[in-house]
């Protein structure tokens, strides 16, 4: 189900929903491009959130909105103002990590 698409001048592997399937291909230009597509301009606060999300992914923590709210980086309200439409889905896509599986 993996395919590739051109992002920031590079051929990047993505899934059907446009999430990166190989985190090693992620870099800041990729993030900028994906953010642009979501009509978001990345500020230092955005980058802090993205880095926090990536760190959770490395630690294999299953992500949800509540955890973001308790991150100490942003509260949920701020998270929504940074990534207004479907914040967790948008932010994880820009961060180059998988869409959080709402397991169960």
């Amino acid at each position, binding site marked *: 189900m993996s395919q590739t698409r051109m992002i920031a001048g590079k051929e990047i592997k993505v899934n059907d929903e446009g999430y990166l399937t190989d985190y090693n291909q992620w870099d800041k230009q990729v993030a900028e491009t994906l953010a642009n597509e979501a009509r978001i301009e990345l500020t230092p606060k955005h980058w802090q959130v993205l880095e926090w999300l990536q760190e959770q992914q490395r630690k294999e923590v299953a992500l949800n*909105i509540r955890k973001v709210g*308790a991150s100490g980086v942003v509260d*949920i309200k701020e998270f929504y103002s940074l990534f207004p439409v479907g914040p967790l889905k948008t932010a994880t896509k820009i961060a180059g990590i998988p869409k959080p599986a*709402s397991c169960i």
Partner: protein
Amino acid sequence: MSMKRILILGAGTAGTMMANHLRHELKNEEAEITIVDERHKHYYQPGYLFLPFDIYKPEEIVKEIEEFIPTGVKLIKCRINKIHTDEQYVMLDNKIRLDYDVLIIATGARIAPEEIPGMQSEEWHKSIFDFYTFEGALSLRNKLREWDGGRLVVHITEMPIKCPVAPLEFAFLADSYFKQKHMRDKVEITYVTPLSGAFTKPKATEALDHLLADKNIHIETDFAIERIDPERKVIVDYGGKEVPYDLLVTVPTNKGDDLIGRSGLGDELNYVPTNKATLQSVAHKNIFVLGDASNIPASKAGSVAHFEAEILTENILRFLKGEELKAEFDGHANCFIETGNGKALLIDFNYTHEPVEGTFPFAGIGPLRLLKESRMNHMGKLAFKWIYWNMLLKGTHIPFVSTNMQEAGKNF
């Protein structure tokens, strides 16, 4: 082996099944088994779905806890104060100290309406209801009996919740209930979920989205609730989106028992971090967790606890003998989904396989059909109440239903 002290916390579905399994496997001189719960009643929780619609009567879904605890297991009815893992004992509120060699945590999950501002307001159980408690389901029944229509909103606060299909079933049964009362045209039903579709797994979501549309139930997805405004009767999400209601049926945030938090054993929702294959606690080798109390990525459902109990029994026997644990639990869940008008769907899935179409329990034969509406599935759901009281709690193996999910008969 020398006499071991096994302590089970919680005499709900999971704890009661474990007490029965272990007493069956271990002789009185091999192990002393104690089970603690502060309540006196055992509730058949799947019945909470039917109570609001007058399908079950209250007395059908309540029995005394004692009825299901086997002889040879000591039942103590008292609130648990704290688990002391360093010295391996549990302190009860009445100052009784219970030392253990093996601790089984089966304290379940509860609703936490206090998590959302405005939920537990003076409108609680007046225009805002839960149906995850006996009191909530009963007061909702009384409300529905006299309600003359308007906007019904069925809502999930956040995942994970017990029985993740129950709110959908509630919406389906509501559609059928109002049709029978010849007032469906007076009721607008909206299903509001934090998920991106009707359910958590893609194929089932497709089937269920379709059913919602068929029944003229609107769906509002990706709704992360921030607060309820009980005066204006709207729910508001973090993005500022509002959904108005006249009658709100919500599934509040679910959390593990406060005991887990008090004892420093839980995650941010008071669930105990647990190995998802062995059911051993991550932090303590002699603590095991089953049912809704754990953080494993399986459904919080009685069927899951049932399958877990069969594997956990074996693992506890192995642990007592100093043998390696079996890493065998596969996340197996098996759930009937009431779809209204005397029909139901059946889903059967695990950690790796999502629910798909097929036949159950006999490959190619059925008689139950997976992910398809049928009357037979509905009969299965109703028959389950008898199975629960008479077989499941007592740890009797249910014929033809295997502990691990079977791949045969499913169209992957």
